[in-house]
């Protein structure tokens, strides 16, 4: 059995074509990336086609169903939902990536350090995690968000509030994985052959952990977007911003479904499903990529 399970590094020349061919085989990664690219393109190029000012109230006639002029319709407050989606998607992605990224990074580092070095390091990190995890995070987020000056609740502070207590999950999961991995044959072999700690971490364990890190990252983005959504539901987010969560909540508060303005909540809901759905697909695809033993041979 081979020691290293790291993915092959693609050759510098002509990598694109094999990569695309690989995507053809790894369908979930392919589809996920395609959806994500479309979304990124939508919010990126959309900025050139819509006026970001139209994403705010009183910009356009209100309560219009989708039409050529307003492809996604307009809401009660006079937002162009097309513009709101372009801006809101960007902001939602921002919160997700910043909070998810920081959370995962802290989690991976702490999880590694904890499981790999053991002893008092492990004990203290684990203790802190175990003390913090049973506390319902939302309460703390709500109180912190609630006690902030409303003008300082911005997209960025939202991300920070969300990440504040979101790193224990990945820490514990990574730690338990590293624990099982430490016991495995290939790590023991590497240790015996005198590979340094860092070498073992980066060459042996980390590559095997990629699916978990990726899963943790996706999970963190979920949590971040969820938490941002909950804060919006309680009226504690930056209410004026066209965050997808805010748009849905405002639609709900005005009885959009009941009043027959279905496009108002449905479009941002679809946006949210697409963002997180594509990340989930990518995550599934990453599993296959990082575990070559189950790559499909077809």
């Amino acid at each position, binding site marked *: 059995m081979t020691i290293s399970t790291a993915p092959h590094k693609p050759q510098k020349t002509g990598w694109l074509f094999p990569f695309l061919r690989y995507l053809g085989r790894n369908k979930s990664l392919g589809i996920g990336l395609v959806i994500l690219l479309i979304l990124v393109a939508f919010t990126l190029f959309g900025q050139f086609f819509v006026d970001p000012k139209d994403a705010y109230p*009183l910009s356009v006639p209100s309560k219009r169903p989708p039409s050529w002029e307003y492809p996604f319709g307009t809401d009660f407050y006079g937002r162009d939902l097309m513009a709101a989606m372009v801006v809101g998607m960007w902001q939602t992605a921002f919160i997700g990536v910043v909070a998810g990224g920081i959370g995962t990074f802290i989690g991976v580092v702490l999880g590694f350090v904890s499981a790999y070095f053991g002893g008092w390091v492990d004990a203290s990190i684990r203790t802190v995690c175990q003390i913090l995890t049973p506390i319902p995070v939302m309460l703390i987020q709500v109180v912190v968000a609630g006690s902030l000056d409303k003008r300082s609740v911005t997209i960025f502070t939202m991300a920070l509030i969300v990440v504040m207590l979101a790193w224990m999950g990945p820490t514990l999961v990574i730690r338990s994985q590293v624990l099982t991995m430490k016991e495995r044959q290939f790590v023991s072999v590497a240790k015996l052959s005198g590979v340094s700690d860092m070498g073992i971490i980066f060459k042996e364990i980390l590559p095997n952990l990629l699916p978990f890190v990726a899963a943790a990252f996706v999970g963190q983005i979920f949590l971040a977007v969820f938490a941002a959504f909950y804060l919006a539901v309680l009226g504690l987010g930056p209410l004026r911003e066209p965050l997808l969560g805010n748009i849905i909540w405002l639609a*709900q508060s005005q009885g959009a479904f009941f*009043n027959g303005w279905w496009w108002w909540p449905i479009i941002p809901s679809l946006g949210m499903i697409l963002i997180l759905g594509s990340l989930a697909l990518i995550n599934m695809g990453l599993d296959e990529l990082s575990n070559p033993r189950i790559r499909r041979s077809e």
Partner: protein
Amino acid sequence: MANFNFKIVAAAIVGVAISFTPSAAFAQTTAAVEITPDTPLEDVGRENTLVLGWSVSSPVGVTNPWAVPGYSSSEGNSLMWEGLMFYGIFTDQDIPWLAESIEYTSDDYTSLRIKLNPMAKWSDGVQVTSKDVVFTMEGQMNNDLLRFNKTFNTFVDSVIAVDDLTVDVNFKVPAPRFKFDVLTLKFDTGMPIVPAHGFDGIDNVNEYAGGVDLPHTGPYDLVAWNQNQKIYNLRESWWAIEAGLSEVPDVKRVVIANLGGTIGQNMDTVAQRLVNNEMDSALDMRQDLIASILEKNPNITTHSGSEAPYGYLDWWPNALWMNTEEGQFADVRVRRAVSLAINREQLNDILFDGAEIATIVPFPLFPGLQKFMDTDGVQALIAKYEPGKYDLDEVASLMSEAGYTKNGDDLWEMDGETVDSTINGFEGIHSDSVPILVEMLRRAGFDASTNFGTDAFQNMADGAPGLYMFGHGASLKDPFATLDFFNSRNAGTAGEPVGAYQFARYSNPEYDEILNAMSVIPSDDPAFEGLATQALEIYWRDQINVPVIQWVHRIAYNQTYWTNWPTAENVGVGVNGAFWHKTSPLVVTNLKAAQ
């Protein structure tokens, strides 16, 4: 392997068991937490039951109007308590109730005589006598937790029982509004009469819940109360039937269905439940919602039928309040600029489909107040001050004059500080209007945002920077009560929190003098109109707050099971149709079964 599976199962069972330990600990220490009837309730049928939707907030079992702060007069409790007199806003008539008459006995409004209805009885059969009235009034006078404590101490000198059915009230100063403000039940206000014998042996009347034991005069008895609902049954021996004031009501049972959450949340579900005939009425709705309800269920109507604004004016017109004492809004030019930034026509278009609900005054435009608005004096003031003007250029010139300059974000700024125009408000009732106001203010260069957070009311009480979206619960017939909120006596102490309706912290001796002169004369006194006009001039000149919208009660009346709801075409006794108001007994007992 079988052994291994067994271990998991065993561990799982232990886990679940342990997770229940805290709940077991809680369960042990608790007594009864619900009111349940001793015998199962008889089934009266849906056609005899009135189902009303409300977010119940008061502690289970509190029916004592003197329980502070537990008691809420909404949530069905108003069906248990009556006052000396009701007032029909739409007929402008007093409806004598526990009292046969209330008359001022001196020309200068310093004494008043109450004659009780000899038929009036408590739910336990005991007669309502002057002893109860004296007990109620002395309670208000001596108990500083009660609503009218300060009013009694300001005006009332003595309360004397002349005989079993006659009570004399003597005032320290002329009190022309006392009969209406305190003794008459209308909208959310007025003093209910409580039983003297119901509080025998109770040490602290403010902590006594009341439950099902406290004798009351209203037509319905509480029979069940849990987290899901409150149930009231008709008491066939209700005194008003025998006294000829009411026929035997068709509504045999009232169920207050708890909608959970805070008022105004998840209203589309409430709307759908109304359309499904699950409920007969519920709390008031935003305009588009009620229009959709009418469209989906032709059996449902509103006060104004199927015409906008689908309701009637409530007594709670909303304004953007602000701390006029310190901070950025202490400068009258900034306050005026806020008003100039608001496009009231656009508010009408977006929020009310063009109905003219946006307002320039802090009091509700009921007939008496509308008459005052139409006087030449007030019209001249409107021409002079243009309180409803929308003019961004004038905003710019006022703000520049006040020393502000536009910064890179196109917001007004002085010494590096923008104008903190965070609007503090309440999610359920303000989620339609506040985001629009925020946008209007931003376009005028104010650093506006929305705060529906937990601290919204606290910010208002503390006088924190920002704007406060809040109503004025006061005037009904003349503008005195609302204008009196800005009397210096309500200004509070700088740096200390203040109560509701005192957020302006405005003080001006000139204004106080006018208000004090108004307080001792009735509104039909020839001097009153002139004084009121002067006060209103100061209100507009100093822009004490910025009136934004009148408050409309858009209440759905479902006629599938119940007809004869009070509407504009069918005013009945003249009270408004809100079942959470103190006049609700008159609404409910006048309903007729449809089937």
